[in-house]
């Protein structure tokens, strides 16, 4: 017979630092000395206090100092337990800032914000509510934008292309006003332009990502065109990353696709010449296409060979690769009496 079991919740260790359930750590990467640090902190504090959320600010200075640094120092001496500053020695980019902020953060929920009041802070309420309801990542969408049309056009085009390529239904990757659970960053190595694609990456890693419309208040900087190179680099970054992540465990899927293509092409070339030779009697030796075909065929075979070596390597290392991460286990206490 079975009595109603007492439910015992065992929790996997969630990182070295103890986290505060429900607490929000606001991470603000500062890349310009003219950053309006004070205003942002004030506006967000007001909103977070209205929501009566436990919170802290982490201002990460990306190699810059200046007026913003002084302002941040003043804020952190004013409220040392609420405002922390991290100064990087040189500029590493926003992704590294985010990592550094994450290292310091103690909240279970992370909120990132631009270095000026870009969107209406009243969005925080619904964002945190969505996370409380089980979402992992809430990103914002400036549906009605207030910046010049040229910037808007570029931004929309960029988002559209990204949507096509990554198959993520997100409209605004360029707005960094986001809230997410700390777990999202736990095993992620951030570099380059990754911070921008964070919602897309999180989505591809299996986290639940949702989008919330926010009110766009203002935009820094004037109209201007980014170079094609900037966009190309951004997209290549994310493509490389996503594909690597996707094929790490199945290298032959990747090598096999490329190798198969070469084999198909080369085989078709060689076969075509051979058939012409048989039908029309034209000499194979007069047709360089035949040799090119054979070469391509062999190239394809070689590439598949590489894929097989990859598979062997993964297989031998597979015991070190754990694909899943356990969030929580529920089991009855009675079962756990055994050693």
């Amino acid at each position, binding site marked *: 017979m079975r009595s109603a079991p007492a439910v015992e919740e065992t929790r996997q260790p969630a990182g070295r630092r103890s986290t505060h359930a429900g607490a929000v750590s606001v991470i603000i990467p500062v890349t310009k000395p003219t950053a309006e640090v004070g205003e942002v902190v004030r506006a967000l504090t007001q909103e977070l206090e209205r929501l009566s959320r436990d919170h802290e600010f982490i201002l990460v200075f990306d190699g810059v100092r200046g007026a913003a640094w002084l302002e941040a120092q003043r804020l952190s001496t004013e409220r040392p337990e609420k405002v922390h500053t991290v100064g990087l020695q040189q500029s590493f980019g926003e992704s590294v800032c985010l990592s550094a902020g994450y290292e310091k953060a103690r909240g279970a929920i992370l909120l990132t914000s631009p270095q000026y009041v870009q969107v209406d802070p009243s969005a925080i309420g619904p964002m945190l509510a969505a996370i409380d309801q089980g979402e992992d990542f809430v990103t914002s969408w400036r549906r009605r934008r207030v910046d010049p049309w040229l910037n808007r056009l570029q931004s929309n085009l960029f988002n559209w292309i990204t949507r096509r390529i990554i198959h993520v239904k997100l409209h605004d990757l360029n707005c960094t006003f986001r809230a997410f659970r700390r777990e999202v960053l736990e095993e992620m190595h951030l570099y380059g332009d990754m911070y921008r694609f964070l919602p897309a990456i999180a989505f591809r890693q299996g*986290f639940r990502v949702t989008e919330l419309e926010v009110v766009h208040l203002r935009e820094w900087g004037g109209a201007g065109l980014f170079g094609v190179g900037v966009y190309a680099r951004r997209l290549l970054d994310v493509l490389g990353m996503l594909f690597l992540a996707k094929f790490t*465990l199945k290298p032959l899927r990747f090598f096999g696709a490329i190798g198969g293509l070469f084999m198909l092409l080369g085989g078709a070339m060689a076969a075509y010449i051979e058939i012409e030779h048989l039908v029309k009697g034209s000499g194979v*030796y007069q047709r360089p296409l035949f040799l090119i075909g*054979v070469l391509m065929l062999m190239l394809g075979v070689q590439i598949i060979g590489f894929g097989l*070596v990859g598979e062997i390597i993964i297989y*031998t290392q597979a015991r070190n690769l754990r694909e899943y991460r*356990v969030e929580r286990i529920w089991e*009855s206490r009675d*079962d756990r009496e055994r050693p």
Partner: protein
Amino acid sequence: MEKVPDITVVVPVFDEEDSLPTLQAEIVRALDPLGRAFEVVYVDDRSADRSLAVILDLQRTDGRVRAIALRARVGQTAAMAAGFDHARGEVVVTIDGDLQNDPADIPLLLDALERGADVVSGWRKDRRDGFVLRRLPSLFANRLIALVSGVAVHDTGCTLKAFRREVVEHLPIYAEQHRFLPVLSAGSGARISEIVVNHRPRRFGRSKYGLGRAARVLLDLLVVKMLSSFSQRPLSYFALLTAPFALLLIGLLASALANAEQITSGNGWGTVALFTTMILFMACVYFVMLGLLAELAVKASGMHRSRPHRPLSTAGFPAGEIVR
């Protein structure tokens, strides 16, 4: 109160809120009469619906249920691996969460294990899925896998399987390999058995598989063959792969030598044959090199030292439904 469970049923769950209570009831009904201690491990792969809440309800009413929530969605195989890693029973049974497998078949699988098999794979002989999209490709793929691997499992895609835990403990489960677990374990000396199981049409939700796996199956075949038979000595596998090219090379070389006078004049089949021979020769050498590289990887990992697992089993091994 239950002691260490004897049987662990692993259920990977993704969006199955409707079927879970029925499934749990059916599992209990199938396993209770056996009088063996069992546990049911539900692994929630971050379902978007209320699946987790349903599982927790089940957990509250039945202490034999364990619930594992994953942090991020990882797919069926990895969810299953989570279940395997947390299983405590000597026997691990995997079953779909969508009720297409019939838990009433579990005792049959356990029976086959009793009789000496190490891995028992379900065979949905009478599948209730669309023919063109689901059954035909699967039929074709399974025949190929059986042919290439030498392990005649009719239905690799069936989730309903039973394992002696020590057999699979040493097998890495990743990517989509749960399908090939019987084949892979056969490679390390396990005895595979197959049991015809009931397959029911979907009652809730929709199928979570798609088409477009034909090319992947071919690639998987290459891998499965390599891993099941040659994971200790990949060089042999690569040498085997060069065989067709080597044969072609010999033929072409003979043809080139037969037309030797054309080689010097530079216009005729002889020249082309010689070039092609050279290309094929290069390919063969590359392959052997790759084989050596693979050998290096295996040696570096120390995997060659973990002897192929030979499971202990005292029971007799009757012929009949035992395929291998």
